[in-house]
């Protein structure tokens, strides 16, 4: 609607934020973006035993224009990358991305000429879900974590503030190569 983005900071905005977050997280429509092995696990998650309908998520949308969550399930090839970006651009705001599986998250074991080394080169990713492929339980966990994130998301001036803080934190963050300690 756009109105909620123009509310003044304060009690009203935070109340609207909570309401909007609750509404948005309770009916997330995922776009079918199945690419490889992970897509089969994604379909399994929607089917009988794991039953994604319990979280109001079963309506996988064929058209990106009716979806607000893209589950990138599988390896993204160089040839698929522009298609993926176009589908993402066609989704209406607000929208979220789950990068399902190591291939989508970082290229995984396919460190070669054909595969994009992480879908975050193309679209912003909200949740990285490791696994090759992740079990359906892991996908559901990722979805529930995303629900929490959607519930806590900010609007209007608060959103700008949150974005600035996030960027400052990212700029200050220690690069992986300078970190010490165990590989975890």
């Amino acid at each position: 609607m756009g109105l909620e983005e123009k509310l003044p900071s304060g009690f009203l905005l935070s109340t609207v934020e909570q309401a909007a977050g609750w509404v948005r997280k309770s009916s997330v429509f995922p776009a079918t973006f199945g690419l490889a092995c992970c897509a089969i696990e994604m379909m399994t998650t929607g089917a009988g035993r794991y039953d994604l309908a319990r979280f109001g998520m079963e309506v996988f949308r064929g058209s990106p224009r009716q979806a607000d969550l893209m589950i990138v399930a599988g390896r993204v090839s160089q040839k698929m990358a522009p298609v993926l970006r176009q589908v993402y651009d066609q989704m209406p705001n607000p929208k979220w991305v789950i990068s399902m599986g190591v291939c989508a998250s970082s290229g995984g074991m396919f460190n070669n000429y054909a595969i994009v080394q992480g879908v975050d080169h193309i679209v912003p990713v909200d949740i990285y879900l490791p696994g090759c492929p992740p079990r359906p339980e892991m996908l559901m966990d990722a979805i529930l974590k995303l629900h929490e994130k959607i519930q806590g998301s900010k609007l209007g001036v608060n959103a700008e503030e949150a974005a600035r803080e996030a960027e400052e934190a990212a700029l200050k963050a220690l690069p992986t190569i300078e970190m010490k300690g165990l590989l975890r």
Partner: protein
Amino acid sequence: MSNPDNGTHGAGANGVNPDQDLNAQNLPGQRGDHGEVIGVRRGMFGANNGGDTSGYGGLVRTVRLPGATSRPYGGYFDEVADELEGALDEQGLVPENVIEKTVVDRGELTFHIEREFLPVVAKTLRDDPALRFELCTGVSAVHFPGDKGRELHAVYHLRSLTHTRLIRLEVSAPDADPHIPSIVSVYPTNDWHEREVYDFFGLIFDGHPALTRIMMPDDWQGFPQRKDYPLGGIPVEYKGAQIPAPDQRRSYT
């Protein structure tokens, strides 16, 4: 592939790895002085700029693919070879000019064909009632940069459903002139297979109806599965360490 009857033929003729005796002493990949040389291996641990203090740096091994086999080949192979030579004769071709050499290795029969005769041979193999190789399982290519003058090999596997047989045709082309006649007109199934080989190896199949890239994007530069094309990975970062891409790492040679 069903193993042909292993008779008591000469070395290499019975469809077994001719080096079995040598293998028993655990000498991998040594083939005496016969066979086709495709390269030389030096050292052991992939250290080629003086860093190898192991004493294996001076190790030199010649890599040879199985060489030509002389008759009898064993099993149904002799029959297939006879029929093919006969059928070529009937068409006025000299079999020795068409078939460079015949290799029997590991129970598989390979005809190395001169490239300009490939469509004729394929058509003969498909249509001759005694041969009847109805099904082509596509073409696979191998790039041997060390095999000077015949770097690119195209390998076809033909299956006869009538006689339950399987043979292999091998055709080579130099890097400087990567052309091989297309056999799509004989085996339409090779349409996509030849496009795939073109896409990955740059082998041009003359006479193919639409030889375009199939796997890579249309504007891709280079032919990614050739040996001179890098794997193209990126270094992977960990806490305090960076691991080079798989093709940049030191490895056993």
